[in-house]
C-alpha cells in the first residue's frame, strides 16, 4: 500500500439506525487493503464503540480516519455534554444511558473499556459543556 487514505463520516445524532455504518465501511476498506485481521478487528470494535457513544451520548459528531502503511488513526469528535469524570466513565459497568437506549441493548458501560482494550493508543479529551474527542490508533 502506498500513500495515505483519508475517510470522513458524519455521525447523525440519535440516529441509531445508521449507527455502525461508518465502522462497517472502514472495516471493509481495511480488509480490502489486506491489513492483518487481528488489527482490523481491534480497530473496528474500538471505532464502533466510539461511534455509538457519539450518537447516543452526544447527539452525533464526526469521524475522521487516516490509514497509513503501519497504522490506522481514528478521531471521533462531538459537541455533546462532555464527560465530567473520565476515570469513572472508563470503569466497566458505568453508564448514564437512558432506559430506551438500554432496552436496545446498549448501556452496559462496556464501550469505553472495550475501546481501551482494543486501541494500541488512546487519547480522550473531554470538556463539560463543550464536547469530547476520542483518538484511537491501531498499529498493523
Amino acid at each position: 500500500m502506498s500513500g495515505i487514505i483519508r475517510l470522513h463520516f458524519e455521525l447523525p445524532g440519535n440516529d441509531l439506525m445508521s449507527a455502525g455504518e461508518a465502522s462497517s465501511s472502514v472495516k471493509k476498506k481495511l480488509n480490502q487493503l489486506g491489513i492483518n485481521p487481528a488489527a482490523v478487528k481491534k480497530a473496528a470494535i474500538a471505532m464502533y464503540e466510539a461511534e455509538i457513544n457519539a450518537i447516543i451520548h452526544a447527539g452525533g459528531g464526526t469521524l475522521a480516519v487516516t490509514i497509513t502503511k503501519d497504522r490506522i488513526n481514528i478521531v471521533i469528535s462531538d459537541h455533546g455534554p462532555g464527560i465530567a469524570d473520565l476515570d469513572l466513565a472508563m470503569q466497566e459497568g458505568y453508564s448514564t444511558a437512558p432506559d430506551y437506549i438500554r432496552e436496545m441493548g446498549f448501556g452496559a458501560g462496556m464501550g469505553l473499556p472495550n475501546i481501551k482494550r482494543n486501541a494500541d493508543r488512546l487519547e480522550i479529551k473531554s470538556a463539560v459543556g463543550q464536547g469530547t474527542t476520542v483518538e484511537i490508533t491501531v498499529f498493523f
Partner: protein
Amino acid sequence: MTVAELAAKLGARILTPQANAQQEVTGVYCGDLLSWVMSHAEKGDAWITVHTHVNIVAVAVLAELACIIIPESIEVDDGTVARAKEQGVTLLGSDLKAAELCWRIYEMLR
C-alpha cells in the same frame, strides 16, 4: 459446520436467503448487551439475541460472528433483514428458546 447446515439441523428459518450461509460456525454465544457481546463473543460464533433492531447487524459484522439467531419466534424488523442481506450477515429465526438453542448447538459442535 456451516451456517446453512446449522439452520437445517435446528429447523431454523433463514431470513436472509441471499446472504452467505457458508460461513463456518465454530462456537455459540448468547447475550443481549451489545458491548458485552462485542468484547466476549468470538469470531465464528453463532450469536443468539432477542434484539431485532438494525444494530445487531453491525455487531455481527464487527465481531466477525458466523450468524445471528433470533429465538422464540420473535419477529424481525424488515430494515434489519435488509441490512443483513446488504452486509452479508445470515439471520436465522427459530421457535426454540435461547437456552435450548445454546444447548443444541453446543452439542453439535462437541
